[in-house]
């Protein structure tokens, strides 16, 4: 089974990376970019075929390691 966990910064938390990228895009002449925030994706292959079990494992993975829930939110999707 394939899944994706997307981790993004909570609103209000400073994103130094996003800020630097925003500036770089402006100086590269890419028009119309108002703001950029950077996050992470984890593409995960799971053994087994039990969807509910997979979702539980992914949630555990996100809570324990993939996301820093003090400053980040995450979303889990089982893709296939």
């Amino acid at each position: 089974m394939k899944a994706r966990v997307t981790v993004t910064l909570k609103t209000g938390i400073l994103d130094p990376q996003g800020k630097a990228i925003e500036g770089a895009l402006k100086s590269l002449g890419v028009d119309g970019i108002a703001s950029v925030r950077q996050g992470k994706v984890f593409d995960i292959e799971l053994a087994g075929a039990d969807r509910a079990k997979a979702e539980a494992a992914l949630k555990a993975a996100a809570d324990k390691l993939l996301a820093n829930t003090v400053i980040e939110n995450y979303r889990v999707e089982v893709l296939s």
Partner: protein
Amino acid sequence: MKSAILVFPGINRERDMARALKLISGHEPAMVWHAETSLPKGTDLVVMPGGFSYGDYLRCGAIAARSPVMDAVRAFAADGGLVLGVCNGFQILCESGLLPGILMRNARLKFICHDVHLRVERSDTPFTRGYNAGQVIRVPVAHGEGNYAADEETIRRLEGEGRVLYRYCSATGEIGDTHNINGAAQSIAGIVNVRGNVLGMMPHPENHVEDIMGCTDGRGLFAGLVAHLERAA
């Protein structure tokens, strides 16, 4: 030797580099701001020092590689000018396409700062003529993303064309996983471009150039460049 050090926002080893260049070549290098569109007249060597240009945000060296001054550097290199990128400078060279491959996170995901041994693979290049082939030198590393990676074809070409100039090794020159500090392909610490005039390396020879600081193994690289340019002149 007239050298020019490129200063990108967030670079932080430009003073170390300037000290080494001045000490060994006798000339104060020019500091060139990233927003410039040309290099000082008569530049013999362009140096991209270590540091965290743009905080290493996005990918190391990615934003700096797209600075205005880089067009001038590309033209300079195409003309055969010597370019040296150390640490962040190496990352910038890879991101700008002047060197192949990329530097990924260290295999153990931690920043590492300590002395390492490097084997000088050949001595017949401007960047290594201060050493003997097979010589082992000791210089520090300080990086979190120095794990050199490229596709198989590129690695094969690098090896086949003798473009790997520096490799991580043991104190006696053995190559192997235990001495490959960051997991780099083929223990690669430094490579040159096809033409041999652009070197990128992760370790910091500029931090080992003074006797009074305990080790001078880094001198050979700069002294070799000076000798090369003197002969060419």
